[in-house]
């Protein structure tokens, strides 16, 4: 089985790799590019742990054929901080105790970022909808919703 050459933008950087036929984007990111921020949860589209942004839209990397992102822009949690400074969402998650075991956190942050990029001041219901594809078994969701609300309500400017 031959490998296919694949080029895309990963967190603003051009990357080029060879992938086996049928390789999903999550495997390509973790095992070939070494970006361990998207997590493998279910492999079925049920948990959201592998969420990334493709051309700014939230996608599940485990259900994305790696070849399908040729020439496109893939953003993962690894790319949202600004140098040594955490992204306002990351700070809000820390301050609001929105992460316990942390396994869902990368996906939650990307889902929240996809929402805030489109709508900087969402209401609670919009936040609940935005993270509805992401499962968290620790927090009961309330601290996560509160963290996103904190950023949405203007803490972002101060962060």
């Amino acid at each position: 089985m031959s490998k296919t050459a694949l080029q895309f933008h990963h967190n603003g950087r051009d990357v080029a790799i060879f992938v086996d036929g049928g390789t999903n984007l999550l495997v390509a990111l973790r095992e070939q590019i070494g970006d361990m921020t998207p997590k493998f949860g279910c492999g079925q589209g049920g948990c959201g742990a592998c969420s990334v942004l493709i051309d700014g839209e939230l996608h599940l990397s485990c259900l994305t054929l790696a070849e399908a992102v040729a020439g496109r822009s893939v953003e993962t949690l690894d790319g949202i901080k600004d140098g040594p400074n955490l992204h306002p969402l990351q700070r809000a998650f820390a301050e609001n105790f929105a992460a316990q075991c942390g396994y869902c956190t990368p996906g939650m942050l990307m889902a929240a970022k996809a929402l805030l990029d489109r709508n900087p001041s969402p209401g609670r219901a919009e936040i609940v909808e935005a993270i509805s594809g992401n499962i968290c078994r620790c927090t009961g969701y309330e601290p996560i919703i509160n963290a996103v609300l904190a950023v949405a309500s203007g803490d972002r400017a101060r962060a």
Partner: protein
Amino acid sequence: MPVTVRTFANSGEAAAALSSDRSARYLGGGTLVMRALNEGDTSISTVVRASDQALTRIDATGSRVTIGAGVTFARILAERDLAFLHAPARSIGGPAVRNMGTVGGNLFAPVPYGDFTVALLALDATVSIQGGLGSRDVPIEEFLQSRERQAGTLVLSISCQKPGNTEAFRYRKIARIKPKGGSVITLAAHLPVSSGRIVGARIALGSMAPTPLRARAAERALEGRSLDAATIGAAAAAAAEGTSPGDNALASAWYRREIVGVHLRRLLLGQE
């Protein structure tokens, strides 16, 4: 296990590749086929893709709408002319699944998935398919009845008549988790009214059989009558007739049969 990925610019070539290889599957949004590959489904050895622009086209300006098979649920939600399909589109997945999953793929989604198809069945949609021998239009009911044999055909688009008004088309997905959850049952009703009487009622149910199916006994109870309490009661009592739901982690077959009439009554009454 690696598979062969074949990408075509033209849907005709993709259809030919699909029909000539029993182990080939068409990859749309990935939510079904990539999942199968992740689970190690060895029956798939070739994945066929098409970058044909026609597959992602929406024509919703007239009274009949045509939606390319590759149109995602997020795009349906962004289209004002498709407002009647927003409730079924919104009921699917979380935002990531709606950015990926397609109208064409939903036709193949097994229970408890395939909610959008329930809406399309109530709307008497037509499925445009391309096989090895050319393209043809198939009524959605016929397509679903032979779904097992459709893996080698490429769905090009789906078309349906817009409902006359917002009251004439109703949709509800019953889930245990809000706002996102798998379907316990899904209901859609198309109730065109002429001179105060229902003419051409279509009730479609999801998770009540291996594929979405029509509740024909309930339709007969509605046909030619006004939507009053007695008619609604008769339709609700007949809702489970002819269905063959299964047990899964979301609900048992017994529970589904018990509640389908309750939810059909609420849908017809316009209750929350």
